[in-house]
C-alpha cells in the first residue's frame, strides 16, 4: 500500500485550497483581543529606577553635607550660614593698623563720642546698617544713618573685599558720613533704641547684636568680629546658562483598536541622543528654597526605519540545444518570468524640536564652596517642530510635519515632570559652575487622540552650566 499512500501524500500534502475572503481581518481582530495592556507608568522599570536614583543621590548628598559640618566656634556660621555677617565698628577718632585694629585712640575707651558702625554682609558686600551714637552717659544723642544710602556714598568701596587691606589713611579719608543722606534721630525717636555703651541694636531684627555674635566687642577695641544671623534670608536673583546631552526614549501606548498601526510605529522608531540648551532665572524664596524658570530649546533625534514592500519581476531565458534526427543542432529558447517579493529598507533621520518653559523648585544647601540641590518641577512644551517621516493610518510613510500629516503629532502644549539633583561649585566673582543630572517624564500624550494611541517622551540628561548671582544695588532696612 506504500505506493497508494505515497501517491495520496504527494498530491495532497502541499495542496492549496482557496482562502475565504476576510479571513485575515478576522485573524487580526482575534489576535488583538489577546494582547496585554501596557503597564501604568509607575510600574515602569525605567521610571522606578530613575526615582530610586534621585532619592539615593539626595540622601547621600544631604548626609554628606550634614555629617561634614565643622565643629567648634565656626560651627555656628556653617550651620546657619546665610548670610555670614561681619561687623566693623570704626572709631573716627582712632587710628587703625592695616588689619583694621585700633592702635591708638584719642577717646576714652568707655566714653568714646562717635562710633561708625557698619554691618557688612560678607556675601553681598553690602552695608546693612550704620549706627552712630555717643555712649557718653551724659549724652543721649543718637544718630542713625540709612545703610543703603551710606553704601552708595563711599563706604562700600572701602569695606568690600579688602577691608583688612586698606591703609589707615585711605580708610579714614574715605569715611564720609553724609548727614544729609542719613537720618538724624533725636532722643524721642529713639526711645526704643537707646543703647548701652558699646552695644549695637540691629533695627532689622530688633535684638541686641550680642544675640548673634560669636565674638563681642573686646577691651582692645579690636572690634572686628563675625556674627551669624539666623533666619535671615538674602533675596538674590540668579541667571543660569546651561546645556545638556540627553538620552531619550519614547513609550507608545498601544490601543487594541489600532494595534498594528501603533505596534508598527513603535518598532520602526528608535530615539537617539538629543540635547537641550537654555537659560533660567532663579530667585531664592528662603535660605534653601529657590524657584527657577526660563526658556530652553530641546532637540530629540530619531531613526525611523521602515520596510517599503515591493515586488520585482524577473525574466529568465533558458536556451537549450539538441540534435535532431537529421543531425542538425536545434536551439530552443524558453522564456519564463517570476516575481520576487521583498522590501526596501528605508531609513529616515527625524528630528523633534521643542521650545520649553521649565518651572522648577530647588532645595539647596551647602557650604561656601560646594552646594547640593534637589530639583523638581514641570517642563511645559509650548511649541514643537518636526522633520522626517512616519507612518500614516494606512501604514504608508508620510511626512512627520504635523500640518502635512493632519496632526498625528501635536504641536500644542505638552507637560513633562522634571526631577534631578545639582552640584554647584563656587568659582568666584559671583559665579558658580554646576552639573545637574535630571530626568524628564512625559505626562502628556504627544499624539493626536483621534489616532487611538498615545506616546510619551522621556529623557535622561545632565545639565552643565554657569550660575551668575546678580549684584544687588541696595538693601532697605
Amino acid at each position, binding site marked *: 500500500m506504500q505506493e497508494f499512500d505515497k501517491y495520496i501524500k504527494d498530491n*495532497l500534502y502541499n495542496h*492549496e485550497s*482557496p482562502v475565504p475572503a476576510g479571513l485575515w481581518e478576522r485573524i*487580526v481582530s482575534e489576535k488583538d483581543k489577546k494582547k496585554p495592556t501596557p503597564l501604568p507608568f509607575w510600574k515602569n522599570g525605567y521610571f522606578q529606577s530613575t526615582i530610586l536614583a534621585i532619592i539615593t543621590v539626595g540622601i547621600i548628598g544631604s548626609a554628606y553635607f550634614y555629617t561634614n559640618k565643622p565643629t567648634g566656634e565656626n560651627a555656628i556660621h556653617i550651620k546657619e550660614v546665610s548670610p555670614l555677617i561681619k561687623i566693623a565698628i570704626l572709631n573716627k577718632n582712632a587710628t587703625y593698623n592695616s588689619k583694621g585694629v585700633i592702635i591708638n585712640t584719642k577717646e576714652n575707651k568707655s566714653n568714646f563720642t562717635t562710633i561708625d558702625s557698619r554691618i557688612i554682609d560678607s556675601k553681598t558686600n553690602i552695608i546693612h546698617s550704620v549706627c552712630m551714637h555717643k555712649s557718653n552717659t551724659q549724652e543721649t544723642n543718637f544718630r542713625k544713618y540709612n545703610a543703603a544710602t551710606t553704601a552708595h556714598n563711599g563706604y562700600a568701596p572701602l569695606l568690600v573685599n579688602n577691608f583688612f587691606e586698606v591703609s589707615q589713611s585711605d580708610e579714614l579719608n574715605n569715611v564720609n558720613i553724609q548727614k544729609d543722606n542719613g537720618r538724624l534721630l533725636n532722643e524721642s525717636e529713639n526711645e526704643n533704641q537707646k543703647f548701652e555703651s558699646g552695644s549695637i541694636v540691629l533695627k532689622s531684627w530688633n535684638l541686641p547684636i550680642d544675640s548673634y555674635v560669636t565674638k563681642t566687642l573686646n577691651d582692645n577695641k579690636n572690634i572686628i568680629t563675625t556674627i551669624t544671623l539666623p533666619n535671615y534670608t538674602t533675596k538674590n536673583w540668579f541667571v543660569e546658562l546651561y546645556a545638556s546631552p540627553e538620552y531619550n526614549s519614547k513609550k507608545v501606548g498601544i490601543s487594541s483598536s489600532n494595534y498594528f498601526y501603533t505596534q*508598527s510605529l513603535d518598532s520602526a522608531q528608535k530615539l537617539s541622543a538629543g540635547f537641550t540648551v537654555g537659560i533660567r532665572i532663579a530667585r531664592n524664596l528662603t535660605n534653601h528654597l529657590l524657584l527657577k524658570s526660563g526658556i530652553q530649546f530641546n532637540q530629540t533625534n530619531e531613526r525611523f526605519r521602515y520596510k517599503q514592500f515591493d515586488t520585482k519581476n524577473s525574466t529568465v531565458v533558458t536556451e537549450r540545444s539538441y540534435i535532431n534526427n537529421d543531425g542538425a543542432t536545434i536551439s530552443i529558447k524558453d522564456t519564463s518570468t517570476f516575481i520576487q517579493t*521583498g522590501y526596501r*529598507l*528605508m531609513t*529616515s533621520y527625524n528630528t523633534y524640536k521643542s521650545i520649553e518653559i521649565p518651572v522648577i523648585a530647588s532645595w539647596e544647601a551647602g557650604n561656601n564652596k560646594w552646594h547640593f540641590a534637589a530639583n523638581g518641577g514641570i517642563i511645559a512644551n509650548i511649541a514643537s517642530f518636526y522633520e522626517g517621516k512616519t507612518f500614516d493610518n494606512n*501604514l504608508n510613510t508620510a511626512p512627520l510635519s504635523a500640518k502635512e500629516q493632519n496632526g498625528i503629532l501635536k504641536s500644542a502644549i505638552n507637560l513633562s515632570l522634571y526631577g534631578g539633583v545639582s552640584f554647584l561649585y563656587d568659582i568666584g566673582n559671583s559665579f558658580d559652575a554646576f552639573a545637574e543630572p535630571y530626568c524628564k517624564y512625559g505626562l502628556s500624550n504627544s499624539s493626536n487622540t483621534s489616532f487611538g494611541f498615545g506616546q510619551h517622551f522621556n529623557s535622561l540628561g545632565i545639565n552643565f552650566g554657569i550660575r551668575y548671582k546678580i549684584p544687588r544695588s541696595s538693601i532697605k532696612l
Partner: protein
Amino acid sequence: MSIVKQLYLLSEHELIKGCIEQNPHTQRMLFEQYAGKFMSVCLRYSIDSMEAEDMLQEGFVRIFNNLHQFKFEGSFEGWMRRIVVNVCLKYIQKRKLPFKDIDGESASELHIQPYIYGNLSEDDLLKLISNLPDGYRIVFNLNVIEGYSHEEIAVMLGIEASTSRSQLVKARRMLQNQIIKLEKIAV
C-alpha cells in the same frame, strides 16, 4: 534627513523574526504564503468549509501568539502545520468523534494498481477523502498525509494504537473501493 535604500528579499528567518516582532506586513506575508496549504489541511479534517475556516483562523492566531517559542530547529512549515493539525483535532474532540467500525467493511487489504488512481486529480482525491467516515478520514489524514505513527495518533486522539491501525486499513480499503467505482463509471 537622508534616506538609505537597499533591496532585500525576505528569508524565512526574517519572516519569522518580523512576525515575532509583530510586524503586520510580515504577518500578512506569512498568512498569504501558507493560508492556502493550511486551508487544505483544515478542509480534510472539518465537517464543512465553515468549520475549516474557524480552524484556520484559530490556527493562525496560535501560530502568531506562539511564534516566539519556535527555536529555529527543524522545518518551520512543519512546526506551523502541527499547530494547525492540533487545532483541527481540538475541534474534532469537541464533537466526541466515535471511532467505530463501519458495518460491512472488512479490514483486509485491497491491492489496487497505480494506473487506476494515477489519473485522479487533487480535487478528486480530496473529495474522496472527504466522503470517508469521520474516524477513518482523520486517522487516514494523520497517518498517510501528515506522517504520524499509530502510537502518536493514539495519544493525539485518545484511542488505542490498534484502533488507529484498523481505522486506517478500513479507510484505505473504502477509499480504494470508491476509486474503483469511479473508474468503472468512467469506463
